[in-house]
């Protein structure tokens, strides 16, 4: 682990290391080119482009590597400019990457929301918004970060900036299965980890990882059972459950399942009619058309909250606004079946969604990750749901998969 000090990037799959000097050279290269609109090859390519954006104080648009051309066009992005190179100059005089992250850069970063609520939308962030959650200090000097999020999305960018600002190595776990990621973390002495609840749910039951000091969960609602499991796997870690969005970065934090709006945000974050709203002053610039989700100066997050009984101001997240699936004219709530599927003892993870269908418009489908060794089949799942849901709310096609497909494409995974 001592050898981590010289590396800024460690490939979690191969163990290959890249030295800090290489990253710092990006700042001073004589004939430097960068890609102001970048669809990176991989996670490291994205992070290097972020560093070029930092040292040149330029605007940078990062596009998910999987985004198809027609989606770019729909988002108003000219595919012809993607990955076009342009020369850049270094503004300012700092030599160390961490100084750039600590606020000396005029980087403006445009990202796209992951689109769990439909077509992705662009959001532009100044370094100031992105850096709000970054913690800098001597006690972060020896942190080692696992990167599980793609750095083309805000959660990944935040991990990257946190690590770069403190000179910490990043262990690239993007694209690894949760089990392989866990192994890479153990091998490379990871101390800090941030990932989605789904990632933690899919971790195998293995010996606890000592040495991990902080574990962050974010992006979906979290229940007590999952927190207990995470605490068992990472017994020495401080658990942090964060509420963040592409639009506003990290907004709320908790060490459990319930949240409270901190005093400093009370005039800018509020619960109205059971839903969380965020004042526009906390948001990055929302690109394109004014989103329908704005109500005056307030952004409607669409996240439903339930008050915690007996408390003043504490609440838990109850999930996204309902995403209706229209099955032959009947509106069906896929979250109902999804919640019941997740309760089945042999199920590790599940998603239920509407699949475009030439007969009824949309057909309710499910993808299910079984526990290893489970022989659960489609008929057994259907039997478990029969009688507990109306017929139209039961997925008609249930596929067993090794991992859940990316939620941005509603189609069945190939066999």
């Amino acid at each position, binding site marked *: 682990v001592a050898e981590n000090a010289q590396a800024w990037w460690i490939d979690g799959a191969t163990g290959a290391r890249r030295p800090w000097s290489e990253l710092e050279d990006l700042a001073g290269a004589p004939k430097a080119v960068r890609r102001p609109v970048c669809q990176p090859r991989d996670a490291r390519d994205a992070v290097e482009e972020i560093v070029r954006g930092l040292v040149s104080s330029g605007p940078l648009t990062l596009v998910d590597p999987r985004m198809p051309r027609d989606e770019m066009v729909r988002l108003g992005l000219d595919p012809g400019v993607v990955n076009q190179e342009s020369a850049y100059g270094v503004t300012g005089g700092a030599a160390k990457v961490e100084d750039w992250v600590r606020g000396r850069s005029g980087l403006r970063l445009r990202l796209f929301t992951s689109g769990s609520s439909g077509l992705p939308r662009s959001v532009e962030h100044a370094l100031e918004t992105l850096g709000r959650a970054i913690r800098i200090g001597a006690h972060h000097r020896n942190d080692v970060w696992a990167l599980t999020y793609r750095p083309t999305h805000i959660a990944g960018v935040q991990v990257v900036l946190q690590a770069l600002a403190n000179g910490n190595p990043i262990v690239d776990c993007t694209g690894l299965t949760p089990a392989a990621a866990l192994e890479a973390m153990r091998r490379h002495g990871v101390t800090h980890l941030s990932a989605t609840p789904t990632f933690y749910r899919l971790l195998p039951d293995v010996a606890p990882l000592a040495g991990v000091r902080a574990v962050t969960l974010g992006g979906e609602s979290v229940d007590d059972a999952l927190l207990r499991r995470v605490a068992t796997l990472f017994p020495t870690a401080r658990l942090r459950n964060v509420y963040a969005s592409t639009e506003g970065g990290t907004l709320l934090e908790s060490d459990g399942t319930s949240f409270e709006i901190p005093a400093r945000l009370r005039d800018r974050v509020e619960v109205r009619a059971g839903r969380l709203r965020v004042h526009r002053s906390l948001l990055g610039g929302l690109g394109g058309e004014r989103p329908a989700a704005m109500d005056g100066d307030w952004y409607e997050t669409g996240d439903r909250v339930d008050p915690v009984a007996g408390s003043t101001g504490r609440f838990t997240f109850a999930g996204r606004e309902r995403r209706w699936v229209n*099955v*032959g004219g009947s509106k069906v709530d896929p979250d109902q079946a999804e919640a019941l599927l997740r309760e089945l003892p042999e199920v590790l993870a599940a998603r239920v969604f509407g*699949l475009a*269908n*030439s*007969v*009824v418009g949309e*057909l309710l*489908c499910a993808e299910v990750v079984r526990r290893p060794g489970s022989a659960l089949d489609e*008929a057994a799942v*259907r039997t478990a749901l029969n009688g507990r849901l109306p*017929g*139209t709310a039961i997925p*008609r*096609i249930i596929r067993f998969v090794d991992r859940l497909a990316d939620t941005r494409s509603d189609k*069945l995974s190939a066999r």
Partner: protein
Amino acid sequence: MNISSKTVEVLNDIRSHKGAAREPRFDGSARLREDLGLDSIDLAELTARLDHEFGVDVFADGPVQTVGEVLAKVERSARRG
């Protein structure tokens, strides 16, 4: 498994949701709705499963009525490759 026996299997799977017994084969002239008792959601499931299996949406250019028409569409698409 060939197209015909796979289609029979898919039809049996869908009919079994309603407790129908499995059949070794279906006549080409058997009507999906009237004879096999499939409703619109059943037909939606049929086309989605065949699409996943063979890459053809048998209802894409209008309704099909019989088992034979379903098989013909799948086979035509398989020949086109």
